[in-house]
């Protein structure tokens, strides 16, 4: 009869192992994308001095009011938007997985214990 618990837990362990591996892989991919594409985006912004345009914010209110809209539009057009979008999505995925880390950690602990028990 103890077999039922064992068989159920065997299936649960196999299933959970797959899920944990999937979660960790997704997290690794998200972090890699974030780091690689993120550094490319930062490099482009630096090289093309896109944000330098924003120095207008240090000017008088009158100047900001007159040219602010145009400057923001220019900055927006200059930004590598697709890459930035990818970074944003990767960041969101990574963040949501990071928030689930306590749950995943508990699962890993159990899976390790289960493997040792076997």
């Amino acid at each position, binding site marked *: *009869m103890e077999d*039922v618990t064992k068989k159920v*837990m065997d*299936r649960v*362990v196999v299933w959970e192992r797959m899920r944990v591996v999937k979660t960790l892989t997704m997290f690794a991919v998200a972090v890699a994308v974030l780091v690689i594409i993120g550094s490319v985006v930062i490099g482009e912004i630096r090289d093309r001095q896109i944000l330098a345009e924003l120095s207008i914010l240090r000017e008088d209110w009158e100047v900001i009011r007159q040219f602010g809209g145009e400057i923001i539009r220019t900055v927006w057009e200059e930004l590598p938007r697709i890459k930035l979008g990818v970074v944003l999505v990767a960041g969101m995925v990574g963040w949501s997985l990071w928030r689930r880390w306590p749950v995943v950690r508990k*699962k890993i602990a159990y899976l390790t214990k289960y493997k040792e028990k076997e």
Partner: protein
Amino acid sequence: MDRESDENLVEEVKKGNIGAFETLVGRYEKKLVWWVENRVGSFEEAEEIVQDALFNIYKTIGRVDTARKFSTYLFSVAKNGAISYLRKKKTEERLTDEVGLADFEYQENPEILEKLPDKYRRVVKMYYWDDLSYKEIAAKLNIPTNTVRTHLRRGKEILKKIWKM
């Protein structure tokens, strides 16, 4: 953990504590197998049904409402498993009897049904697998009841021929 309430254990499982599920399984496995065995009449089948039920509960544990009694939910899932098993068994027996193929092992040969022309296959499936009546099939397919009867008869004849080949 053994003294924890079922609902607390379910909450623990939701938080990633797989061991809490092991406790839950251990708490109910005997009762469940005994209960299912009384309905299906076979210990081995009862074990299978209970295993499937428990595994399915684990997979959907996030959706379990802890405001409701867990044991009620557990037994209702096991009951559904037992009902599907009995329905499947009944269908197998009915199909074997009516088609007159004592050795018809459709489970091992599901492709045999695929050999039927589409119009016969859907009627055979609805009648034997979904347990629908002639009238219900007629309404679903928007065809006369007599046509359903004819399609079913022809379908069975073809099945016999295929099986004897």
